[in-house]
């Protein structure tokens, strides 16, 4: 069993920095929690591979905000696309449910309404369709590619074609 005398758990990030975090925060990281529970002896320091100190800073920020009931104020706007993906991977590794949902939603928000080409580039995916296959799929869902055909409406709805 891990040392229960102290309320702080030491986590060592990939770049060697040691963070002393509250036990409650460590509990939100299911990966870390599993390591603690599996340990026979006291664990003094838990290494978290794949997580860097700049990730931990943001994780601690989020934790503080959510404890204060202000989790909606947490923002990842300042992160560029690659930094956001990086952070998402770290949180995924640590298996933190709430923050994971926040981040996947943040990525989805950035991708919403973007084009097929943009999304491919974002995920680094290659188009493996032949030109004929691609043309066939595009044709099948042609209406989905047309811009929002929203017509302005006043009190009376127009009888549209």
């Amino acid at each position, binding site marked *: 069993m891990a040392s229960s005398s102290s309320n702080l758990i030491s986590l060592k990030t990939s770049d060697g920095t040691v963070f002393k975090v509250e036990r409650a925060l460590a509990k939100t990281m299911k990966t870390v929690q599993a390591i603690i529970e599996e340990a026979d002896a006291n664990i003094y320091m838990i290494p978290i591979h794949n997580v860097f100190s700049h990730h931990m800073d943001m994780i601690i920020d989020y934790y503080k905000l959510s404890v204060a009931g202000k989790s909606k104020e947490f923002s990842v706007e300042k992160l560029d696309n690659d930094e956001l993906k990086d952070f998402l991977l770290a949180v995924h590794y640590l298996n933190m449910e709430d923050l994971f949902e926040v981040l996947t939603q943040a990525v989805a928000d950035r991708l919403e309404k973007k084009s097929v080409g943009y999304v491919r580039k974002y995920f*680094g995916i290659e188009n493996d369709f032949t030109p004929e296959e691609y043309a066939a799929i595009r044709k099948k869902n042609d209406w989905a590619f047309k811009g929002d055909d929203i017509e302005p409406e006043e009190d009376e709805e127009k009888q549209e074609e």
Partner: protein
Amino acid sequence: MKGIQIQLFDDFDVCSPSLTEETNSTKRQATKFSLMVRGLINMLKILCSISISIINKKNISTNRRNLIGTLTSPSSLPTLPFDLIIEILSRLPVKQLLQLRCVCKSWKSLISDPKFAKKHLALSTTYSLHGIGRNYYCPELVLKSYSLNSSVSIAQIHLPLKGYVRVLGSCNGVLCLGEEEDGGDLFLVRLWNPSIRKFKELPPVRKPHSYQLGMRGFGYNPISDNYKVVVVLLPSDDVEDNAEYTGNYFSNHEVKVHTLGTDSWKSFSVFPFAGLFVQEVGQYVSGTINWLVYMDIMQGQCFIASLDLGDESYQKVLLPDDSGEVDQHTLDLSVFKDCLCLISREDVWVMKEYGNKESWTKLFTISYMRDHCTSSYYNIHPKYIFEDDRVLLRCCCCEGDVYYKYISYNCNCKNGTSKFIKVGYTLEVCIESLILLCF
């Protein structure tokens, strides 16, 4: 990973062409030897290719299923594993997902997969309104979709259907439509998902002569992960005229059920209830379809007839103990946040725990009667409640013809945020979903 260069001599020929036909035995030995060597070389080739593919498997690419992604140093681009991509995609709008089927082959199969549709549905929060009807200029059936946020028309589809089309039910973003053939004895049924504009024809119901369509419903059975359509046929001269006489809507009725994926309608056990009138379009809630049944107009007694699609059983669900609070003469049954919702004049009740009468909770009261926006209408009836305190009201207007006007009304700010949709036919509310895409 650097490429491994392997040079193998493919055609290892021990026998040089200059050998003369000296001795056959020498030649045979040489052939045996070259065969052995060839065999050894082939084995070596196989072993090498196995080890290369093992090394390749350790390289994680975006299209592999893997729980741990490649987390590299900040200078190189992070690639997300496939299951993270699934999490992100299931939060995108349906129209965009249809476009993203063009990204690559694995995304095309993912987005068309029914399991992905279920995951997306669980996270979907976008609703829109859909109506069916006809207009004077065009004899074809018009299916019109409206965005809830702006109440503007977002789509219009024409179908060359001549018969009388009605909504049989709505579930998980799919509407079930029934068309009565003019003078025929077939009742044509089709499913329609307006957000992906996909239709699916179902086998028609054979309706015995002088029978007509009564209660109906469409729902999802979570136990068998499948959809069912329920249709009740009533002898024509029993309803309305004889209802007062027999006092029972349910006498001599027949129940037919169709399970999606099968090719027929099966007869089903009849409702074990009695009642005078029924709100005919069933409301789907968590594996059950529910209909409001009126027992007596004068005393205003009602109950909810429920059909459980999983164990195929009927149940009576009771209304809240009213003691005057629930006005049974102006009731409407609908669904709010996956719970049965009862609208009684201006009061909204929600059944928090399905089947448990004590869990009926009065959520709020809609006071629109004094609002100038709605004062010119009569017979105002709340039809649907949305999560952001907006209510869909159906009002009657009389400007020449009597028709319905649907108003999206914000309960909190009562001044002028109502939007109007004028329609001559009923509207259904639908959530955005990918269900039916795989068909």
